[in-house]
């Protein structure tokens, strides 16, 4: 009962906050305070609800009025609670961060509306994971899309923002259409809009129909999750949005799609075919690899982070795909393991990606630019932001024992277990996926190294960067919270994993908590295949670090540290003698030029001597492959067809009467025949 009331409060509170914030739009400071106080309170509520559900197991609740589609009910099991918890944690930190961040919009944009939409966005995400009625779910799904759309176009007077937002809205709408069709196909077979009736109906459906539903959902939710080639909106929308919003979108909104994919493939449809899992796996691999490759060559911090989200969604799908493959062979424990790995990655990605986006927001706030090529030297000017951004980057690069490492480690372990699968071809496919994942990991490290190194290290590349100052305390607090969680979720993962097992056990059909966690060790397998202990790794690292510091100080005595200029062959040290971000990624750009299809031009002005060039110009741009070869032609095709059709409106009344005449004659003849 208590949970019900908390849940009710969780629904009502953000809406009340939104309305209040919108009404007080005129008083910017007050409305910011109200909006984000409410959102942080309601996220705490969400956390409490999630926690209680983990204790109780599940919760069902209905809206007091009925609809033509049956009761509008909410159902939360541990899976939903896990996502609710993740959403809440991230929202809490981002809300704290927003106190400081939202203030800089004061006087430029209606901040109250930002706060209001922020609350609605949070609330819609909560309801997406908790809706049990298909139509209610669709409504909340679109509310989530719409509210995030409004948040994306918040800075609508910026060049390109509205266009990016629109593209996002359209992509997500296409997804919704596919999802809706899938849900309705299920409804037609189950006779009820309640999601709980779907698994039963799925049993009676033909293979073709069930696969159709699966593919529709894969496309629909994939569009939201940002799978390649439906990912194009991410690097457009995330940079356009205010940073606190991009943090939420990237860290948790795309996760709602992962949530639904897990829910659909394991709950609603039941894992049936191996090729489903292989499909998800393949999509995951392509997304992970292409995502990280584009992240690597990007020089806009937020775009880079968006591409990294594509990569990480890919990794989650790899884990999910492996889980589905295991499930299809009845290897329940292993399916559970892969699912836990997937969930762990969901959690760790939520933590580090929100941290990184908040960090990017801080940089943007302090320097007014998110172009790495204009940044640099921020680690000295904004030490706290720098340190926390580094923690995020380390977690994203899977540096042990941070949370990002633990999840990647678990995914590797799950994939290594593929030797239990009877089919050799499937084993080989999973091996290839494993190789892809390994390359992805290495490239991700390079990408995050680049974003941190170019942005925060060495000399500033512009005056804005030179004059950067540390951001307000509330923003640091928000980031600090996430940074601490990045570390803790890794080190204390042995305490988190049994909780994740509670989530995966009902889906995969087997609980592996007993074997998975042995004291402070994690044994992610059947038998003695492998193990690791994140807290011990942390302890060892700290101990060795202490030892190294002490001993190296002791040996050779205390030596002075002299400050001097960097050696650079005697050339003057300016921003232009530093290595640029583009230069950093150039070797990889060249190595994979068949993917990037870079367009390079080189022009030098001619002068009398061939050895003396007065001016040289080198440009290199990467072709937006998907825009150019997929979206561009599609849009052009639709427009072309529309143009052709619109010829019929000639303006001549004779033509118009002619249409009626022709239709009449045709129909009369058809009737006679």
């Amino acid at each position: 009962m208590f949970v019900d009331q908390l849940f009710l409060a969780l629904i009502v509170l953000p809406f009340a906050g939104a309305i209040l914030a919108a009404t007080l739009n005129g008083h910017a400071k007050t409305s910011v305070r109200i909006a984000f106080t409410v959102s942080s309170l309601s996220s705490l509520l969400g956390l409490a609800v999630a926690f209680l559900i983990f204790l109780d197991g599940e919760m069902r609740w209905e809206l007091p009025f009925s609809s033509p589609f049956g009761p509008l009910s909410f159902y939360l099991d541990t899976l939903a609670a896990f996502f609710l918890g993740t959403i809440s944690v991230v929202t809490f930190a981002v809300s704290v961060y927003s106190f400081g961040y939202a203030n800089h919009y004061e006087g430029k944009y209606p901040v109250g509306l930002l706060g209001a939409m922020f609350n609605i966005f949070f609330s819609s995400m909560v309801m997406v994971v908790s809706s049990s009625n298909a139509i209610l779910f669709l409504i909340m799904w679109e509310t989530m899309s719409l509210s995030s759309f409004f948040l994306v176009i918040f800075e609508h007077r910026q060049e390109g923002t509205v266009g990016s937002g629109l593209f996002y809205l359209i992509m997500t709408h296409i997804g919704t259409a596919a999802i809706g069709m899938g849900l309705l196909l299920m409804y037609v077979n189950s006779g009820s809009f309640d999601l709980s009736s779907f698994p039963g109906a799925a049993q009676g459906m033909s293979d073709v129909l069930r696969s159709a539903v699966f593919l529709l959902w894969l496309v629909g939710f994939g569009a939201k999750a940002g799978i390649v080639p439906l990912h194009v909106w991410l690097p457009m929308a995330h940079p356009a949005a205010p940073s606190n919003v991009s943090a939420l979108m990237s860290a948790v909104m795309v996760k709602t799609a992962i949530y639904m994919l897990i829910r659909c493939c394991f709950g609603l449809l039941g894992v049936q075919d191996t090729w489903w899992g292989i499909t998800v796996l393949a999509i995951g691999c392509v997304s992970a690899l292409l995502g990280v490759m584009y992240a690597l060559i990007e020089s806009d911090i937020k775009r880079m982070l968006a591409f990294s989200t594509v990569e990480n969604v890919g990794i989650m799908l790899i884990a999910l795909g492996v889980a589905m493959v295991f499930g299809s062979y009845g290897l329940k424990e292993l399916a559970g393991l892969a699912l836990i790995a997937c969930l762990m990655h969901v959690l760790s990605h939520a933590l580090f990606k929100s941290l990184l986006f908040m960090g990017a927001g801080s940089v943007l706030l302090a320097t007014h630019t998110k172009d790495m090529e204009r940044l640099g030297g921020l680690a000295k000017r904004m030490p706290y932001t720098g340190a926390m951004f580094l923690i995020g980057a380390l977690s994203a690069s899977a540096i042990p024992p941070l949370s990002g490492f633990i999840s990647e480690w678990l995914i590797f372990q799950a994939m290594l277990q593929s030797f239990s699968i009877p089919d050799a071809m499937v084993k080989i496919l999973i091996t290839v996926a494993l190789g892809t994942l390994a390359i992805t990991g290495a490239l991700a490290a390079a990408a995050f190294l680049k974003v941190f190194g170019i942005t925060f290290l060495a000399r500033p590349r512009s005056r804005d960067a030179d004059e950067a100052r540390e951001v307000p305390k509330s923003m640091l607090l928000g980031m600090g919270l996430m940074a601490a969680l990045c570390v803790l979720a890794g080190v204390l993962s042995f305490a988190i994993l049994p909780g994740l097992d509670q989530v995966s056990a009902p889906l995969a059909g087997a609980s592996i908590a007993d074997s998975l966690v042995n004291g402070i060790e994690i044994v992610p397998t059947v038998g003695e295949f492998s193990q690791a202990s994140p807290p011990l790794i942390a302890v060892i690292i700290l101990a060795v670090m202490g030892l190294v510091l002490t001993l190296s100080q002791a040996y050779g005595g205390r030596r002075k540290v002299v400050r001097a200029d960097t050696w650079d062959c005697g050339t003057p040290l300016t921003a232009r003698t530093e290595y640029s971000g583009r230069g950093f990624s150039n070797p990889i750009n060249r190595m994979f030029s068949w993917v990037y299809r870079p367009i390079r031009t080189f022009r030098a002005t001619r002068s009398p001597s061939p050895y003396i060039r007065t001016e040289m110009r080198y440009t290199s741009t990467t072709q937006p492959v998907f825009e150019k070869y997929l979206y561009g032609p599609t849009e052009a095709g639709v427009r072309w067809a529309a143009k052709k059709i619109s010829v019929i409106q000639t303006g001549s009344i004779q033509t118009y009467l002619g249409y009626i005449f022709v239709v009449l004659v045709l129909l009369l003849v058809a009737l006679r025949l």
Partner: protein
Amino acid sequence: MIEIALISPAVLAIICLLLGRHTRAIEAISVAGAGSLLVSGSYLAFRTFDEGAIDEGIWFMDQFSGLMMFIIVLIGFLAVVYSVPYMRQEMATGEVGKRKVSYYYGFLFLFMLTMVMVVVSDNLGMVWIAVEATTLVSAFLVGFHNKATSLEATWKYLIICSIGISLALLGTIFVYASSLPVLGEGSDLHWTSLMAVAGQLDPAFLKIGFVLVLIGYGTKAGLAPMHTWLPDAHSQSPSPVSALLSGVLLNCAMYAVLRYHILLTHSPLGGGFSSGMLLLFGMLSLGVAAAFIITQKDYKRLLAYSSIEHIGIIAIGFGFGGFWGVFGGLLHMLNHSLTKALLFFGAGNVLQKYGTKNISEVRGVGRTMPFTAALLLLGALAITGSPPFSIFISEIMVLAAGIGQGSFLPVIIYSGILVVVFAAFMGHVVRMIFGEPPPGIEKGEISRSGLLPMVALAAAIMIMGLYIPGLLGDALKELIGLFGGME
């Protein structure tokens, strides 16, 4: 009882025409009269919802008429309320004189009278007369501005709709012919008496009759390819009239078609023939409208084409049939009226503020008229089928019907086109609302009172997005039985 709903607009029209230059008095009487019409019309509608059909000889109302009646009086009332500030602004800018204003209100009430007559006439011949009368009356409203373009629109409207309606008369004759062998000389062309013997009507006559009626009334309803007059007429008329034309008149024409559809469903022919025809024309309308929405440069025409699209959806809903198809179709008639009226009101504000119908010349409405912009954006989202607004509900019902039928090709085309329309429509509207307004446009709403009907409509479509009032829901379910959607 039903006569009240017929007499009062007639009386109001005469008063308005007589009062001439007393603009203030006309305004007061119009609003009060439209209000009382709303009360009496709604009373009739709810009586049908509550107690079932009211049969008063030549006047007959079942739940279907009730639904239509409710739409007419509601949108009519809101249009009158919106007209007051709209016409004042037109007078202030010197567009129209006082004398014309009295004509405007007079014809507005006559227009409502003819539409009410369409839905309360039992006699299918009377329905025809009333539909033709709507054309004749509204022609004056379409041509109200007396500009070259509005005259052109009026001419096309008159000629194309008249030719269409002649075909509908031919169709009516055939349906009448089909009843003669059964009812003999006693046949009075009353829908109720035809329904009573529906099982014995001659299928061959019904078939050709329905085809002619569909082309005929379909012209009036804006089904492609007979829709050609619609974008012209709807974009050239004053905005409150556009709201009535798009939101109500199209429904009335569709109502007439559907009466025949019901008849055919109960005849030996079964519902398959007429459903198939509705589906065909619905799909055509959807496709054609989508093409024009993509390439559109004029926002009032954009709304007009959107009306064609939605009439298409309604036709598709009834074409799919079954519980959800009919439910969705009926609900969509209501939802589309509410939403389209909201959008035309919003477009009226924009037109009066910016003085242009060109989408590319309208920028930054959010800055100049924040409330209109918000309502417009909300309306745009609603009309393109975004939840949590009501059109989403009816569209998803239609989709459910299609999927339930297993007609996958139409379903795929339907959803594909809806997505494309969404993209194109939002593309236009979002560009109008955001960005920097062009220089020389003052900030500030046209009028506060003009926003009231818009707010009411917005609230209605939002509430209907999640919740359908029990009485309405029950009435619609009764109707589903009538359409044969229950089996």
